C-alpha cells in the first residue's frame, strides 16, 4: 500500500506526458498483479455438464468467484470418471472439490480420497437436514441437493393420485406400468430396492422384490434409459412409473400430463454431494466453496431450476415448485436412504439376479 502511495505522489510531480506513461505502467502492473493473484487462487472442481453444469455455474460457481475474487476451474466429469481420477491422482490431486451423485462418494471416502469436515467448519451446517451432513466427519461431503425416486403418473389416465408403491401392481393400470432396468440405471435400482422393501425384503434379501416384479412383468414394460420413459409416456403406453422427481419435471416441460408423488412408504434419496478432496493444498478455499454450495439460496435454485429437493431446511419455495418436489420437514422425514456401501458391495450380484428375473 505504501508503495502505491509513493507512486501517486511521484506521478503528481511529473510532466503530463510522462504522467500518462507511468499511468499506463501502473495499469499494466495492476493487471499483472491481479492476474497473478487469480492464478494463485484457482479452485478446481468437477461438474456434470449440460443443463446441470449451466445451473451449477449460475447458482454456485460464478457467484463464488465474484464473492471471493478467485477463479474456479470446472472440469466436466461424471461421478465415475471423477472417482477414477481421484484414485489415479491420489498423491497430488487435480481436484480440490469433487461432486458426486449415485453414491460414489462413499467409496471415495472409504478409500481415503476425501477429507473429513468438522461441523464447525461449515457456517451453514445448522441449516441442513441431518441426513445431508450425516457423513461429513467420515469424509462424505454434504448433500447439497437430492434427487428423489417416487412414482410418476399420467394425470389424465389416473385421476386419483396413487398413494403407495403397490399402485404399480394395481390391475387397473395393467399394461401401462413402466419399470426401469435396475441393472443399468441407478434410479431404476433405487426404485427396485424400495419396491423390494415394501414387499418385505431387505438389502440382504431381494427375493421379495424380484418376486413382486416377476408378478407384474407380464403386463409391464421395462426400459433402461430415461428418453425411453419420455417416449412411453408420450405414446400413451406408460401411465405409472417408479422414477425420479426431476425427470417428472423434464416430462412436464415437454408438455406431458405427468406428476410426481412421494408414496406413503417414502421416496428414495439419491443424494448429490460436494466433497473435500483429501490432500488438496487449498483446503480453506475448498471449504468455503462447500459452505457456499449448501447455502439456502443455492439449494432453492436447484429446486427451482431442476426440481431437486432442497437439503437446506431454511429454503422457502413458491407453491408451484413446492408441489413438484418433496419439500418440508414432514415430507423429507419420510425419505428412505439405502446404504451406499452395501449397494456397492452387492450390486454385481443384484444385477445378475435382476437380469435373470426379467429375461424373456
Amino acid at each position, binding site marked *: 500500500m505504501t508503495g502505491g502511495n509513493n507512486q501517486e505522489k511521484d506521478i503528481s510531480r511529473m510532466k503530463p506526458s510522462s504522467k500518462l506513461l507511468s499511468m499506463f505502467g501502473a495499469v499494466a502492473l495492476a493487471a499483472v498483479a491481479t492476474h497473478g493473484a487469480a492464478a494463485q487462487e484457482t479452485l478446481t472442481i468437477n461438474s456434470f455438464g449440460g443443463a446441470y453444469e449451466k445451473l451449477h455455474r449460475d447458482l454456485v460457481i460464478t457467484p463464488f468467484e465474484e464473492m471471493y475474487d478467485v477463479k474456479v476451474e470446472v472440469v466436466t466429469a461424471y461421478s465415475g470418471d471423477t472417482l477414477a481420477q481421484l484414485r489415479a491422482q491420489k498423491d497430488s490431486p487435480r481436484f480440490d472439490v469433487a461432486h458426486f451423485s449415485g453414491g460414489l462418494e462413499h467409496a471415495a471416502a472409504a478409500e481415503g480420497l476425501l477429507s473429513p469436515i468438522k461441523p464447525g467448519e461449515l457456517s451453514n451446517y445448522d441449516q441442513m437436514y441431518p441426513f445431508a451432513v450425516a457423513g461429513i466427519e467420515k469424509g462424505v461431503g454434504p448433500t447439497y441437493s437430492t434427487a428423489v425416486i417416487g412414482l410418476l403418473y399420467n394425470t389424465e389416465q389416473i385421476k386419483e393420485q396413487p398413494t403407495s408403491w403397490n399402485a404399480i401392481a394395481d390391475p387397473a393400470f395393467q399394461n401401462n406400468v413402466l419399470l426401469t432396468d435396475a441393472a443399468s440405471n441407478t434410479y431404476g435400482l433405487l426404485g427396485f430396492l424400495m419396491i423390494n422393501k415394501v414387499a418385505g425384503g431387505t438389502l440382504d434379501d431381494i427375493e421379495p422384490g424380484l418376486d413382486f416384479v416377476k408378478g407384474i412383468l407380464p403386463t409391464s414394460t421395462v426400459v433402461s434409459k430415461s428418453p425411453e420413459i419420455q417416449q412411453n409416456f408420450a405414446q*400413451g403406453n406408460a401411465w405409472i412409473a417408479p422414477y425420479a422427481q426431476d425427470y417428472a419435471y423434464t416430462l412436464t416441460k415437454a408438455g406431458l400430463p405427468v406428476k410426481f408423488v412421494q408414496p406413503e412408504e417414502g421416496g428414495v434419496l439419491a443424494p448429490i454431494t460436494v466433497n473435500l478432496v483429501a490432500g488438496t493444498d487449498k483446503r480453506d478455499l475448498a471449504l468455503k466453496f462447500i459452505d457456499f454450495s449448501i447455502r439456502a439460496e443455492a439449494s432453492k435454485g436447484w429446486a427451482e431450476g431442476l426440481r431437486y429437493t432442497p437439503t437446506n431446511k431454511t429454503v422457502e419455495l413458491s407453491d408451484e415448485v413446492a408441489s413438484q418436489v418433496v419439500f418440508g420437514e414432514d415430507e423429507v422425514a419420510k425419505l428412505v436412504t439405502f446404504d451406499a456401501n452395501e449397494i456397492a458391495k452387492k450390486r454385481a450380484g443384484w444385477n445378475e439376479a435382476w437380469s435373470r428375473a426379467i429375461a424373456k
Partner: protein
Amino acid sequence: MSAGSAQPYREPAILLTPGLLFLLLAFFFPALQLLAQSFLTFGTEPARFTLEHYAKAAVDDFYAGVGVRTFRLAMIITALCLLIGFPLAVIITRVGPALRTVLIVLIILPLMTSVVIRTFGWLVILGPGGVLSWTLQQLGVIDRGISLMHTEAGIVIAMVQVLLPFLVLTTLGSLGQIPPSLEEAARVMGAGFFRGIFHVTLPLAVPGLASGSLLVFALSISSFITPTLVGGVRLQVMAGSIYQQMTGSFDWGFGAALSMILLLSTLLLIVPYMVITSRIGGRK
C-alpha cells in the same frame, strides 16, 4: 511380379504396414488384453490365473440362452438381407445409369445417418401407439394397439434395414464383374429370365454374396445399439451382456470371457462358411 527382385516381399510389406499397424493396435492388442483378462481374477488382491469366468459361462444356461438368441438372430438377419439384397443388387445392375445412381444413393443414404438415429426412427414406427400400430388399426387388421418393440421380430426388422446396404454394396461389386454376354448367352440358349439369374448370375455372384453376408453376420453378432434399443433389457444379446458386465457389474473378467467366447464361436462359424462359399464360387 517378383521377376528380377531380390526381395519380392519388400514393397507389398511397405504397403501393408499402415494397415497392419492399425490392426495390431486397434484389434490384436485389445483382443489379447481381453484374452488375458478372461483368465485372471479381478479385484483388489493381485490377479492370479483362473478358469472361473469360463466355468461360469459354461454352466450357466442364462448366458447359453443369450448366446443362442444372438446367433439365431444373426442368421435370420443375414438370410433376410440375402433374400432382399441379392434381387435388389441384380436390379441395380440392370437399370439405366440415372436410375442406378438414384437406387445406389437410396441404399447409401441411411449409412449417412448415425445408427442411433435410425434406430430411434424404428422406435417411433414400431412402438406402442406408433405408425405401424396406428396404420394396422385404421385398416381394421387389429383392434387393439400392438407394439413390435421389445420383440425379436422388431430387432430383425431394424437390423435388416441397418445392415442391408453392406450386403447390396458388396454384391454390386461382384455383379459388376460378370460379363452381360454370359447371361445373354443363357437367354439365347432358351433359359427364362429367372432361370438365367438362378443358374448364371447367382453362382457367379457368390464371392460378393459370401463376403457381404459375412459382413452382415459379423456386424449383427456384435451389434449392440439396435438390439438394446429395440429389443430392450429383457431380450439380451451377447454384445449387450458384455457391455452390462463391463460397465454395470464391473465384472471385467467375466465380460472378457464372454467376449472371447463370442469371438471364438463367430470364427468357428465363419471359417467353414468361407471355405464352402469359396468352393461354390470357384475360387481356390
